[in-house]
């Protein structure tokens, strides 16, 4: 992974390699094979005809049909993966409620963490002109079933990690809500934020661009993805 690039930080290269291996291992609710299938499906979503039609429509709910998918994942899982990959800005609470009825919030959170980690890794590869990395080889074993018993309902669609009222000098809480978002499933939280953390910091960013340049890029991406947070 990133074998030829000397301009990426070593911490990032190492973190992504570890994430790739973590994806291939059993998670909390999915096997290693299922998790690798989530990676494959995340990539294939970009070529799905239904997703393409929905993206063009005034509302994604106005277009019915089936996703281009031939594989072992349940239809609701495929819907989650494809929509999250191709049209994240128009996800709704009713859509979420429908999906979690079928798979449960815990599996939902696990899939979200994998898709979003893959998006980071593949986006960086593609933007630097590399092909995306090969799928990892699934590791054997059973899912752990581990959830965070201390997760709380704090206004998100899913229970999130408990927060703190302590404020940082950025004007944000020491642990902002986004850093609590996947806290229902510890391994999902760990996968995503291990992937994300070497890319960015809220202050004193350790990159050659300034904090304001990084914040501009971050804000522009958020706007393009129609992200409220």
């Amino acid at each position, binding site marked *: 992974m990133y074998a030829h*690039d000397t*301009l*990426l930080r070593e911490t*990032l290269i190492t973190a992504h390699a570890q994430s790739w291996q973590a994806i291939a291992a059993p998670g909390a609710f999915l096997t290693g094979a299922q998790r690798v299938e989530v990676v494959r499906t995340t990539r294939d979503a970009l070529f799905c005809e239904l997703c393409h039609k929905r993206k063009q429509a005034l*509302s*994604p709910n*106005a277009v019915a049909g089936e996703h281009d998918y031939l594989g072992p994942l349940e239809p609701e899982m495929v819907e989650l993966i494809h929509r999250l990959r191709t049209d*994240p*800005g*128009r*996800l*709704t609470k009713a859509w*979420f409620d429908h999906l979690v009825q079928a798979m449960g919030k815990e599996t939902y959170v696990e899939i*979200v*963490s994998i898709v*979003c*980690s893959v998006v*980071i890794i593949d*986006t*960086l590869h593609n*933007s*630097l*002109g590399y092909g995306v990395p090969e799928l990892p080889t699934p590791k054997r074993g059973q899912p752990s079933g581990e959830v965070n018993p201390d997760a709380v309902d704090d206004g998100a*669609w*899913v229970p*999130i990690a408990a927060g703190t009222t302590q*404020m940082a000098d950025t*004007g*944000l809480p020491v642990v*902002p809500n986004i850093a*609590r*978002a*996947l806290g229902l499933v510890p391994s999902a939280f760990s996968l*995503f934020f291990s992937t*994300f953390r070497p*890319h*960015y910091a*809220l202050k004193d960013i350790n*990159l050659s*661009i*300034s*904090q*304001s*340049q*990084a*914040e*501009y*890029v*971050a*804000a*522009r*991406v*958020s*706007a*393009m*993805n*129609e*992200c*409220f*947070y």
Partner: protein
Amino acid sequence: MLLRASSAQEGHNADLQSVTDTSLSPGVPQGDCLAELTETTINGDWLHMAQIRGRAEATMGPQQVVDALTVAAAFNGITRVADATGIPLDDNTAAVTQDMRLQTGIENFAYASKSARYDKLN
């Protein structure tokens, strides 16, 4: 909020409106290059990426280009975490950015607004 604060701290005057209105200059150093790199990346326009990267490298240098793309990739992922979990704004952020959200159109991205807008077309 962080864009405004960090920009002021560095002695610049970032135009928050430029985040949603691409006809405006961002007001941060090399803002136009950053915008082009970011938009090409998030649109997945890989055919033109080498050309855009090359142009940006001539202005910013290769390390800054790689680091800008590093941030873009990260936020392409974390925005999806926010969108998929319906995570609410932090209380202080919600309070101090209310005017800015209305001014820039970001308020339209609120999860309750999206649900009302798209679910009724179901």
